[in-house]
């Protein structure tokens, strides 16, 4: 049937109208934005923005790859492998434990990436300090916290990825790239070489020194003046600036108001026993909750030993040889859980346990060593500091002291808390069959970083 003329006319009009509708479809509908994110140019406009970015920096530092625990785990697996039987299945950790790392080690890459990610978060905070206008004290605190976290990250990086102090010339040994401003976009200027070990340490010392002056004496779970001083004491110890290390430790002991926990065994299980609260001895820790936070010391050292809330991969079995190092009667000797024929340290059994970064006992040990080495008695005599630690462990007091006795006490007190690699390097003691300055004890610069940034030099042996 033929459409009549009228319908045909109507259809032409209809066609034209449809055509117009088609061609004017609205392109504005393509202007949409994400929901869980905001554009970077509107992220740091108010004091509130700076505050939440600072929280973000803590979040970064708490990630598993960094102070959530991998830094400490790597330290013990590499530096304490004579005392641990590692049976885990993460190849990156197995290789670290066997000191057979390659430049592709996933944990070496993870820690590097995590640390720099955190550093950029700190640099973002530092870039917007002018937005913090509520009180000068708040501004100081924000700046101090960002500097503390940034310096801590650089300290860990330079210790893990570069030659130790005393191994050649620190002012020419490559350290790690120093990035002190936030990244907005990536240009050629961002492909930077490694600064010298000395330059990195200088920056760390400067940042921590400044942070110590800026930070408040108390700051809930966040970094305080004492956290900065404690970290500074570690830095100086690595640098063999014993007087400065002892002084910093002394400032913490004298000023923080913290006390040693009378019972060594109550220092852990912060979640299971304390509902998440820290023992008085913690100077700085990262808080873990059921919702948030990582504790990879628990992941790898932990095990379900039948106490509700204990968990872990049972990867790090403590060798009998280690337990034999403790004197009879040492409460620390019994701080192991025997399960399935193996011993596990009780320090990291709590699935949601907080991750201690520095506790007061270390400050006594540092002060004692510094005073002993310099024949000084800043704050107290080395003997009284060491005996404080021994008494708490249920051991008889010593009457004479040697450097070996101090470092042994330090080793036993802080065992499996992630110190041993750096202790070996600091004290120039061998690790297993390897000399303290063996290249195998230095993490590789991640291959992905070498590949992408041609101005980086790889560490020897990779």
């Amino acid at each position: 049937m033929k459409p009549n003329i009228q319908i045909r006319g109507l259809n032409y009009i209809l066609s034209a109208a449809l055509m117009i509708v088609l061609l004017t479809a609205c392109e504005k509908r393509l202007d949409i934005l994400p929901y869980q994110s905001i554009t970077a140019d509107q992220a740091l406009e108010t004091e509130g923005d700076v505050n939440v970015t600072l929280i973000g920096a803590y979040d970064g530092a708490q990630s598993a790859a960094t102070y959530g625990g991998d830094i400490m785990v790597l330290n013990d697996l590499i530096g304490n492998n004579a005392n641990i039987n590692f049976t885990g299945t993460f190849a990156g950790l197995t290789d670290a434990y066997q000191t057979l790392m390659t430049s592709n080690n996933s944990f070496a890459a993870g820690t590097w990436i995590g640390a720099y990610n955190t550093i950029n978060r700190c640099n973002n905070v530092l870039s917007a300090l002018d937005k913090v206008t509520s009180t000068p004290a708040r501004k100081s605190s924000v700046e101090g916290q960002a500097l503390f976290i940034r310096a801590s990250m650089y300290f860990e990086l330079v210790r893990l990825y570069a030659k130790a102090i005393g191994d050649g010339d620190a002012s020419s040994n490559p350290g790690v790239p120093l990035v002190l401003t936030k990244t907005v976009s990536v240009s050629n200027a961002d492909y930077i070489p490694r600064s010298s070990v000395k330059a990195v340490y200088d920056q760390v010392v400067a940042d921590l020194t400044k942070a110590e002056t800026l930070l408040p004496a108390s700051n809930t779970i966040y970094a305080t003046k004492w956290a900065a001083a404690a970290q500074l004491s570690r830095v100086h110890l690595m640098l063999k600036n014993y007087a400065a290390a002892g002084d910093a430790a002394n400032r913490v002991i004298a000023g923080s108001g913290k006390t040693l926990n009378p019972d060594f065994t109550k220092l852990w299980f912060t979640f299971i026993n304390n509902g998440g609260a820290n023992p008085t001895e913690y100077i700085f820790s990262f808080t873990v909750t059921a919702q948030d936070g990582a504790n990879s010391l628990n992941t790898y050292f932990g095990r379900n030993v039948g106490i509700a809330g204990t968990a872990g991969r049972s990867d790090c079995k403590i060798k009998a040889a280690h337990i034999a190092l403790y004197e009879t009667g040492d409460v620390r000797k019994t701080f192991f859980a025997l399960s399935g024929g193996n011993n596990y340290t009780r320090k990291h059994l709590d699935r949601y346990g907080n991750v201690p970064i520095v506790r007061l006992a270390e400050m006594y040990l540092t002060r004692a060593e510094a005073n002993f080495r310099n024949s000084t008695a800043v704050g107290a005599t080395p003997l009284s500091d060491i005996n404080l630690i021994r008494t708490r462990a249920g051991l008889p007091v010593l009457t004479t002291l040697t450097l070996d006795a101090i470092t042994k006490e330090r080793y036993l007190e802080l065992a499996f808390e992630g110190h041993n690699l750096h202790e070996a390097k600091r004290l120039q003691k061998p690790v297993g069959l390897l000399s303290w300055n063996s290249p195998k004890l230095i993490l590789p610069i991640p291959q992905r970083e070498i590949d992408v940034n041609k101005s980086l030099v790889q560490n020897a042996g990779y």
Partner: protein
Amino acid sequence: MIKKLLSAIMAFLLFMAVAFAQNTTVTGKVTDENGAPIVGVTVLVKGEKTGVNTDATGNFSIPRAVGKTLLFSAVGYESTQGVTKGGSLQVSMKTDTKSLSEVVVTGFGGSQIKRELTGNIARVKGKDIEFMPTPSVDAALQGKAAGVFVNSQSGKLGQAVTVRVRGNSSISANSQPLYVLDGVPITSQDQSTYGGDMNPLTDLNQNDIESIEVLKDASAGAIYGSRAANGVVLITTKRGKAGKTNVTLNVQSGYAEATKRLPMLDSEQYAELILEAAKYSDDKDGTPLNDPFSYTTYVKNDVMDYYSYGQWSKDPKKSYDWQDAVFTKGPYKQADLQIRGGTDKTKFFSSFQHLEQTGTIIGNSLQRTTGRLNLDQKANDWLDLGVSMSLSKTFNRRLPDDNAFSNPLQAVALNPMTPFKDPQTGLPAGAPPGDVNIPLYYNPVLSIDYASFTQDVFRTFGNSYLKMKLVKGLTFQTEFGMDYLSQNEEGYFRSETVRNQTSAVRGAGNNTGSFITNYNTNSYFAYNLVKNKHNLSATMGMQYQQSQAKYNSTAGTDFPSNSYQKIASAATKSGGSSSQTDFRFLSYFLRSNYTLMDRYIVAASGRIDASSRFGKESRKGFFPALSAGWIMTNEKFLSKVDVLSFLKLRASYGIVGNAEIGNFPQLGLFSGDAGYAGNAGQRPSQLRNDSLRWETTKQADFGIDFGILNNRITGEIDYYQKKTTGLLLTVNVPASTGFTSIVRNVGKLENSGFEFVLNTQNLVGAFKWSTNFNIAFNKGKVTDIQKQIIEGGVSSMNRVEEGYNVGVFFTPEYAGVDPNNGDALFYKNTKGADGKLDKTKTNKYSEAQRIVVGDPNPDMIFGFTNNFSYKGFDLSVFFNGIRGNQNNIYGMGRYSSASMLYEDNNTADQLGRWRKPGDITNIPQVRLYSTNGSQASSRYIVDGSYIRLRSVTFGYSVDARLLRKYKIEKLRVYVSGQNLLTFTKYPYWDPEVNADSFDSNIAKGNDFYTPPQPRTLLAGINISF
């Protein structure tokens, strides 16, 4: 289209027939091979121009035809003829299997007869994949379309399938094709939050499908412009037919089992190996074997005795193959009902399906219920309208991802002396109150018995259209379609699983909702003009797509008891989230075809796309294509070559694109997910790139279509070249910036290859035999990535390297074992000044350079189908295969073929290890807890080629004449088997593998305790009335 046209002609001719009816009329009925009536068959008296069409019951009546030859023709059937001296004639027509007369869907309402195509479109008929127990339509394409590589990845039900059309066209952007269902681009990417990627195409009942067209070259794909670089899969569902209402019921049931078991060590063999390893380590340390602190003592007491509940020392022969604990026989049941019919004005197709499938791995099951109604209405002379609507509910009890201790297949890692049950409690090993630290690793059976994770997907595919005839030859069609995916996932982990799910001290639960709303509207004009020797058609219009994805989730711990499993009862709400992400596309397209004298064809098409995924300045892209064809057999000089019944040359060139890089890759972003200890925080999360734009692929295709011996042999030969530039690449930046990557348009890659399709009717008598064969060769090469390092997969062994295909295996080269000391050796492969690789062997792994040692992409893929029929019997045998690809077994190999670096059970081949000086073997000495050859290397890169007997179906159709009195048109019973045989050198379970935990564009070919494909056997019955 054609059907509608035919109906119109039929009506007209019937009218004529009635008008001129005389007594010499011949009446009769036309039926198909199964006795079902065929509607709309044109019946002509030879030598005359007038004719009639068969009616809805297949009957016809044609005047003045007694004694004359009648010609019968219909689309989809072979033409036939008949003479009668009486007044009635029964005619049976054969289905036309000569593919050249097929009509191929081209998108946006278009269709073309295959012989006139100038682009490359592979067509798979719904009939060929009907009632197959393949889980989804993409898996059903396997081996059916030349150049379409399908890898089902895993034997887990409903999991994602890799599909590559003519190779990988991208590195960082998605390389899966675009799926378009009845005009609507549908959500085809994983939406699950647990385990491996799922396949949203599982929600589609593949028995609803009339045809699948894969648009492979640029000419065919350009109308989908920016979204066509990976190919476009057009899925067209069945629609109603005028005529008697046809009801088909198909019921099938059977069972599935894993295609293979892997030989593992038994208790005695394991003890031999681990004690030998312990002895090595003790000897090295100088520890006497019987020392209480020796490795040997430790292994005896604390490994073998401890993990066997003390049984090993009493009965060292007692052994358990943990595969027995995790593989199972899974029943399969499926019922389909399809009802199809209609009148001249109203046509409908409706279907119902219920499917129940149990996995071949414990704890895995899938149930799907779907319904569909497709309705077409001719409102009046100028207006047609219709709707398609499908509802489905898919339930899946999921398995964890491959790289989880709770993955059932990881049970093979457990010591063979560990019994399945704790002898004290009678419960599965490791279940409290027994020792939860037995077995060696978490017993995955606990996660099946004491936990569940389920996924419920409610899916609505809907589409409605209006089609108007505006003026002669010009129509306007507007369509509105929606794909609504609503998904609920629920997990509950009882306290028994706490070793694996550490938050489940007193139970842990989670609940996630995902709501993906995907709207699409197409509006287009179609014009068609046939004048003398000219045939012109054109389509022009616009498409707008808007997708919104909303997610929410909650998680809780501390439940009163395991009887309470909803978050409402959780004392601690341990997690909660909601999020949203959107994308939009606005596109204009044009397609035109011109045919001159049925010989010369030219076609042009193009599309302008704009997307929310790119910056304002760069978000528009233009994607044109041109093609031409020459039907040489219509030329005089070839018309006398009788053997050659059809010959066409065709060529096409065009540009298509890819924008599948996720949403908002162009923006510099902060994210608010950086809270700490209960306080909210933000972090910089993405670097900005204002100039980010489409990835473009230029593709040229040259093809020959031929038909020989009256088209009994038909085929296609194609050569193509695809060059992708401006790759949407996730480019690494120095991590010292605080970021690891940025998305940039960097780099180039290319694919080229040949495709051959051959369809033959080998025997056409009572015994019929036809063969469909397709084979494709693809060579992919990344030509420029500006030195970017892009890695993925197990131990980052997959890599993108210039000069090689995407995702090649890049790792040190294994050099076997030093016969003197049992050390594993590697080739140094240091590049010398002359460019040659130093083939010196070393036992120091760190001295060995990484080189390309394999490629997970096949060089060749093929499918080979043979169909036989004799009287009521039919047999279909389908093979498919791939060649030239390697798989990476390091995922499991690093534990189970690792010279006892771990306490894991080993694969049986490890017994062939080096034992004493002089031994020649490839398996190094076993050394407890020491690395000896277990590093990533070519030792674990193995041949992944296979040929698989993918399906065999044997059926018998009862003679239609016998059924007539029961009013049954067709009754067929059949048995069918899937994956019955696999020919391969692959040492693990299944060469068709890709571990879900590592799957990405570049991470292919990885095996990580990945479940093998099921071997399914089933029997079915199909009745039509």
